[in-house]
């Protein structure tokens, strides 16, 4: 494998290895590792501090807006309640149009998306529409989608899917009489669909979204939801979701194998799927042992201990092999 290219972003251990592969002495390689953990240059600090102060400041202003409403709720007329929020939406749109492509526009579009949700909530409370929260969240997702499309910002896509997932989960919760497994499955479905669409757009010559943290965040959330659905479906005798959850586990494994094992190697996604597999297999074993056992349980606990150790070891061996494969076989 060739040494790291000059523009490759490196961690301390990668910097040390790259230095050795380029013929530097051991002392220079250690120094390279230390430099990789050194403070960013002042201009990078400027970028980071601007982003941090701007992001937290915009978030606090959004909170102030919501709190202001709560404080003055009883004293405000309908026109004032809705008018202030609509003004905030217009202001966000104007700022976004004026400084489009810059941080200010991105923050304004984030604020605008939140204001859409607040506007729907205020509308629902003012006119007492009798709507269930799932209608609010699905409406928010639908009306907020244009803001997300215009912004093309990763964090807004995450927020949109969270709103959509919560709305769908709540809808299923109401329709299925509090079946937690079905609600969790709805969240998984939104996450899985989002990952699929993200991967499809990433193969375009000019993808809209590039940051890999976004599908990873979806995978973590969808994986956790799938584990909840599987375990609850397995142990809750009133739940109808177990076979759906089992099918979802199989579908997720097949999809992940195709996208992140055959087509490309994405260690994070593989690790998430390994986690889901371990949770599913362990809970199946525990359920099977609980069904057949009538003893005090020490043998069963020992079997489960050994099983989890073997699963963990197997996952570690396989993931190490994948990490090696990702590096082109050198390890």
């Amino acid at each position: 494998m060739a040494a790291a290219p000059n523009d490759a972003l490196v961690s301390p251990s990668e910097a040390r290895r790259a230095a050795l592969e380029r013929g530097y002495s051991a002392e220079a390689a250690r120094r390279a590792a230390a430099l990789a953990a050194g403070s960013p240059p002042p201009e990078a600090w400027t970028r980071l501090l601007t982003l941090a102060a701007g992001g937290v400041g915009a978030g606090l202003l959004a909170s102030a807006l919501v709190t202001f409403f709560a404080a003055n709720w009883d004293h405000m007329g309908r026109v004032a309640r809705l008018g202030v929020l609509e003004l905030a939406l217009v202001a966000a749109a104007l700022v976004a149009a004026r400084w489009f492509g810059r941080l200010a526009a991105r923050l304004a579009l984030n604020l605008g998306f939140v204001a859409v949700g607040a506007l729907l909530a205020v509308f629902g409370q003012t006119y007492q529409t009798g709507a269930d929260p799932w209608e609010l969240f699905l409406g928010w997702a639908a009306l907020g989608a244009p803001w997300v499309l215009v912004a093309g910002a990763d964090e807004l896509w995450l927020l949109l899917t969270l709103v959509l997932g919560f709305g769908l989960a709540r809808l299923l919760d109401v329709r299925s009489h509090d079946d937690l497994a079905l609600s969790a499955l709805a969240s998984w479905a939104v996450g899985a669909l989002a990952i699929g669409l993200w991967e499809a757009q990433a193969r375009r010559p000019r993808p809209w979204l590039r940051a890999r943290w976004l599908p990873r965040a979806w995978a973590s959330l969808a994986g956790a939801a799938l584990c909840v659905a599987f375990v609850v479906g397995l142990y809750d005798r009133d739940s109808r979701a177990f076979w759906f959850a089992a099918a979802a586990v199989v579908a997720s494994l097949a999809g992940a194998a195709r996208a992140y094992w055959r087509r490309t190697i994405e260690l994070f996604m593989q690790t998430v799927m390994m986690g889901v597999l371990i949770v599913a297999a362990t809970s199946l074993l525990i359920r099977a042992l609980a069904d057949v056992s009538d003893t005090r349980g020490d043998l069963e606990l020992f079997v489960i201990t050994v099983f989890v150790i073997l699963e963990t070891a197997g996952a570690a061996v396989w993931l190490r092999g994948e990490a090696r494969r990702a590096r082109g076989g050198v390890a």
Partner: protein
Amino acid sequence: VSAALRPTFGEIEARLAAEGFAPETADAAPEPAAEDELMPWFTRVLVGAGAWLSSLFLFGCLGVLFASSLEHTAIGLGPVLVVAGVLVLRAAPGSSSLGLFLRQGALAAALACTLAGQLLFVVGVSERAGGGGAAPALAALGVTVAVVVAAPEPIARFLSTCGAAAAFAWVLDAAGLSHTFDVVALALGAGAAALWLARPARLARRGEDTLSPVAYALAVAFLSTLLFATGVGPFEDFHWHDAAAPGRLSTIGLGLGAVAIAVAIRRELRLGAPTPPTAVAIAALALLGPATPGSPGLVGAVAVVLLALHRRAPVLLGLALAFLFFFLGAFYYAMTATLLVKAARLGVVGAALLGGAVAISRRARP
């Protein structure tokens, strides 16, 4: 952001050249990947979670097996499991005679034994001491610190350091110290800051950082301790025996700590004396604690964010930001003021931060 959190090799090579280093050979052989490249943090989280889970099952198994004589058995069996586990953890990574699966299996089993052994030992001492007193706390602190020192395996070090942090709080509580959690928060914060600030020195000395899991664990334990002060959910009106949640002492101490970190950053960057606006911004860090009474988590998380950016540690940064957002929400929830005053405070701070962002970006323009 990722470009700011990771340097390119070209940037590092330029620094090496400036310091007088040059390649000694034209074409060196490919180097084996470091352990943290083959087992990145998320894989370690999975393996650590598996080890922790299996240790609980093992503990349960032994608890059921020796239920009638737990007091005597646990005190004897616990240390045996810990010693056996540590020996395997030390020997297995370098063993070339074992196949990879056997080696990983031995490591996973050793982790489970080490963790279950620590738990058994503490339970045994506690049973013998009648459930109270300083003995079980000291036993917990002793056995966890011993594992941190003796076992170089990263997951064992991380989990045992977390255990040692909890045991430290237990010891202080058993000693009847007032402001237990203030002392714990400040000690953990100071320990985490010291380890993170000295990371480049350790890397320059050895090329790898074997104390990195301890540094991560101290940061996690530090932020988790500050959760007790949030008054949200399970932490509402938090008290552990007579010890109250971190309070005023922590907010003042952590504010000063954040200032010390900012000064250390400027010193490492050799920025010289600060301009008046910069000095005001740094001083504001010290006031962040007193300005947010009852929420030392806010200034603590800000300090960890600074540390993470300073040491280019993306995982620590993600962790600190998650805690920061939670602490912000908790602070709002716990604020004893009318909604109008809350809205005014949030608006003023938000506008000030946005103004700060604009000012920073304007000053940076050529």
